[in-house]
Each structure stands twice: as C-alpha cells, then as structure tokens.
C-alpha cells in the first residue's frame, strides 16, 4: 500500500526509537564486556561506544586470572555458577517438558472438563515469595538446599504449567485422525505416541522447550533463595560481583551477561527452522 511521506518518516522514527530502547543497553553491555578496567570504572570521564583498548581481561578475570590493572581478586570464579545454571536449567527443562508433555497428551486426548488443566496453573495465583518460603523449608528438610539437582527439581516444577499448557494447545490442534489412522493399522497407543505423535510435534516441542529453558535460565529469585554458595547460578553470582574497593564490577558483569546470553541464542538458532516452520501441520487442510 502506498503511504504518504510524513507517515513513512513517522513510522521509521518510531521503529528507530523502539530499536534504540531495546538495543542500546545490549550494545552497551557488549562494548563494556571488552573494555579494560580503566575504561569502565571511570564513569563519565570518557564514555565511548567502541572500547579504546579492547581486551579480554574481563573474561579472564571471571575465570580467575586477576588481570593486569584490576587489583581485586574473586574468591570464586564464574565456572561453577555457569555449570550450575547449565545443569539446573537444562535438567529442569527436561523435567518440565517430559512431565508436561505426558500430562498434556493425556488430558488432551482422554481428559474431560476444564478444572484439572486450570488447577495446574494455580501456583501462579500466588506471589512467588509466598510460595518460595515454604519451598525453602521443604528443600532444607529434604537436603536439597544449595544443590544443582534441588534447583533443577524446583525449576521443573515451576515451569511445568507452562510446558503443560503450551503442549496441550498443540495437542488439541493436532488432528486426531492421524493417530486413529495408526491405531487402525494395529499400532499400540504408546507406539502411536512415540512414533507418530511426537515426531509430528517436533516443531511445537522445540518451541516449548526453548521457552521453558529461557524461563529457567533467567531465574534469579528461586536460585537466590535455594542456593547459598556451592551451586549459585549465573544471575545470583552476577549480583555478587562487587568489591569494597571498586564497587560494582561492571566490566565483569557485562562479560558474564554476554556469556549468559549465549545458550538461549544458540538454542534459538538451532530450532529456528522449527519456529519458522511454525505450528501448522501439513497433513490437514485447515
């Protein structure tokens, strides 16, 4: 459609503004991650978008090398928190997706009534804090405090409703005739599920898993409450990056932020094909 020039200008200005608001902090983080101590610590002195002397010192610092001009040293390196985040978020996603997919399939095909599916999201009715304190006590009792498996378990439980609801919508949309066709051929229910349903649901599964993973990966509150030292995750660890001498270690935080952004981006690129192919199934004339 042909639109007037002022409208086009306004449109691009609006888009540019939106992009600036969302992208500037990210670009600033990337820039900061490669700045040496002298550049990121002296705020206001010489703010530059491009580091004058790009360096990997911030990354080295995170992993234990106290660098050239930074006089503080960390009492723990970023390695363990990264491992903790990877383990808890991944296993949590596996738990949520496995249980959520199975529950969604069962309720979508054999369930009746709307109460049970709705009951699954009641955890979301409470402010997280109200739920987390009792959980903390239970975890302490079970000896799951400050362990990656304790975190993975609670992540799986907290994101289960999301996995369930996403997958239920997808299962509801999948034509049941495809399964019936396999059943008529003498296929067992379980086999229909593993050989026909799941392969056809590859795209929705991937999309839901990415969504759940990002939720787990970016959690701060739960990890803050359930871990103390051994298995703190990236967000909790990041908050502790400061020292009495230099204050907030912005350079190290930016470097860690950049590292934290990598897994979701890689996952996103990996399943992009599925995301783009979308959630329509070619078998049915809609």
């Amino acid at each position: 459609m042909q639109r007037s020039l002022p409208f086009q200008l306004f449109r691009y200005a609006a888009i540019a503004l939106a992009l600036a608001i969302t992208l500037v902090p990210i670009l600033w983080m990337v820039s900061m991650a490669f700045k040496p101590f002298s550049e990121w610590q002296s705020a206001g002195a010489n703010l530059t978008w491009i580091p004058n002397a790009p360096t990997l010192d911030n990354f080295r610092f995170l992993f234990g090398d106290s660098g050239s001009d930074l006089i503080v040293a960390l009492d723990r390196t970023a390695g363990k928190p990264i491992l903790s985040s990877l383990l808890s978020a991944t296993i949590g996603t596996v738990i949520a997706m496995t249980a959520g997919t199975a529950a969604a399939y069962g309720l979508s095909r054999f369930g009746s009534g709307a109460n049970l599916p709705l009951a699954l999201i009641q955890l979301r009715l409470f402010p997280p804090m109200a739920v987390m304190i009792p959980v903390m006590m239970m975890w302490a009792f079970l000896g799951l405090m400050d362990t990656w498996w304790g975190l993975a378990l609670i992540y799986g439980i907290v994101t289960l409703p999301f996995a369930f609801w996403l997958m239920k919508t997808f299962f509801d949309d999948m034509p049941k005739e495809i399964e019936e066709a396999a059943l008529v051929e003498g296929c067992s229910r379980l086999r229909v599920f593993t050989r026909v349903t799941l392969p056809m649901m590859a795209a929705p599964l991937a999309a839901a898993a990415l969504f759940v993973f990002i939720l787990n990966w970016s959690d701060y509150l739960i990890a803050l409450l359930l871990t103390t030292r051994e298995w703190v995750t990236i967000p909790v660890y990041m908050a502790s990056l400061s020292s009495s001498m230099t204050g907030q270690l912005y350079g190290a935080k930016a470097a860690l932020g950049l590292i934290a952004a990598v897994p979701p981006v890689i996952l996103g690129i990996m399943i992009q094909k599925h995301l783009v192919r979308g959630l329509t199934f070619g078998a049915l004339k809609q």
Partner: protein
Amino acid sequence: MSAIHLQGLVKRFGQFTALKTMDLAIADGEFMALLGPSGCGKSTTMNMIAGMERPSEGRILFGNQDVTGLPMGRRGVGFVFQNYAIFTHMTVRQNLSYGLRMMGRPASEVASRTGTMAEMLGLTALLDRPAAGLSVNILQRLAIGRSAVMEPAIFLLDEPLSNVDAAFRAVMRTELKSLQRQFRQTMVYVTHDQLEAMTMADRIAVMDHGVLQQVGTPLEVYNDPVNTFVARFIGAPGMNLLPGRLLQHAGGLCVDLGPLGISAPLPGPLAAAAASAPAEVIYGFRPEEVQLDPAAPLGLPLTVTERIGARSILHLGEGETSVRAVFQSGEPLPEAGLVRFQPAAAAVRLFDAATGRAIRGV
C-alpha cells in the same frame, strides 16, 4: 466372513442422540454407501464400525464375531479419512508400508506389496518423496493406498473425495470401484455426495437426523423412495413434491393439486393403494419424467429456464407449488407464459401428507 451386522445400534453424546436404533446388514463383498446430509449420523455409524467410538447400545458383528468391545487395532479394518491423516514426517514409501511394518511382516514382503500398491495407484515415482509437500489429490490417493495395501476384509472410507478437486474425484470414483472389484472387500463408504453413492455403491443406506431412512440399490432408492426426505434428497434436482388431496374425478382416483389443476387418474395399482389412504397426500414425480402437452391437465407459469450444457431445467411456479422439469437441450421448450404438463403415468408417486411415508401400489 466379513459381512457386517449392525444390531440396534444407538449412539448418544450426552443429551444428544446422534444415532437412533440403527439396524443394517452389509453382505460380504458388498459396496455399501452411507448417504445423508451432514449431521445425519453416517460418520458416527462409520466410527463405531471402525471401533473409534463405542456404541451406547446395540451390537456390531463382523461375520459371526461380536466386535462391539474390540479395540480398533484388532478389528482388521482399513480406514480412509476425509482429511487423509497422512504421516507427514515420513516419506510416501514409509506411509504406504506403515501397517505392514507394524505387523512385523518380512522386509521382502513389505517391499513387494508396497511396490505393487504404488504401481497400482501411480505413486511409484514419488515413493521416496517426503509426504509433507504432496498435493491434496496425491495425499488422498496415498491414504487409500496405505489402507488398501493391508488388504483388509473390511474397508471403511469416510468422505474420502470431498476435499479433492472435481476432475480428480471422477477419476477416483472409477479407481475405487475397480479396487473394490479386484479385492472383493466389504466396503462402507460415507458420503454426502449422491453422485458418488449412485455410481459406486451396490446398495445405498440413506440417513437423516440419526435415523436410517431407506436401504436399497441405487435404482430402488431413486425410483421408489420410502418417504419424502429420500425423494427430495436423491436426484439432482430432487423429486417434485406437491401437496394435494385425493378425489374421484373423470372416472378414476385423481389428486387435486389446487392452483395446478387436477391430475390425470392414478394408474391402477397406485389408485388401489391410495383408496385406503388419508385424503391429504403429496404428489411426487421426477423432473426427468415431465411431459409437455398443451392438452395436459396441469399448468404452471414459467419462472426461469436454466441451461446446463446437455440439459435444460425449467422452473415452473413458485414456493410450495413449484415444479422443476428436466429436458435434453435439443427439445423445443416454451419461452414464457403458462406451461401445461403432466408426469408420465408410471412415474407418479404418492406420499402420506401427515407422515411423509410413501403410499405404494403393488
């Protein structure tokens, strides 16, 4: 051993009764079409034969075996769905061979039977293509092949041609019929398209509102509908049905058709049957059986003439007293004004106006 007997079949969904007491016997090797408008219960019947739904009441027998409680995988039926239900994550070959592999047939047998079926359906060149990108026509052909390759004794098809295009539908009608001749399966074919039912079926079961209306050969259903629903539903256009009243006139039992005039005397057997019937009747005749004659007893003004290639349809009158008449295009037809006509004597059918049931001469 693959005759199908439906005995007192009832299906209720909550408050709604989808099927009311259906009794139907389908012979071994018979091609039976379940025909009716949407919502008539034909698909529900089919799903119960396949085992996808449990009947609320009644029994289903294959041969002498009661299969009412048998899960669908163990009934040994082939099923073709309206929306193909092709496994789009597999290739054409994997789809075709799915059932055979599921039964654990040896690889050589799977390959040869799949190959033969692909050959028969013209799918050989596409065997290694992924099923996801195929056209609707090919998908439905593949769906039929996937079921047929199992050589099921009972083959169920649920509106398999309603999504494909018209030209392909004509081709598939012929192919399905020859497929059935070749394998001699018992075939149950659900459709709302009477052309499919008339051309392929040995017998047609006409259904409406969950009730089986009539079972008969295509010609029986066409010539001798048991009630006004079947009369109107079968045929394109359907039978002309005019409200009237029986009376003695001109030396015989006639029907007073109000504004149209009084019909010619009814033929002997029909008059005998009508003698004991209530006076209020519905006078019916096929549009193809109308004769134009300036001296004919009935008359209506011409409203519209439809010309459809080889045929022309005259629309006479309006509303309740309207008649459609079909002629070959070569015949001289009136252009306007009052048209006088009468149905061929043998083509006249009478229905009870109160119940809609046919009044039949012997």
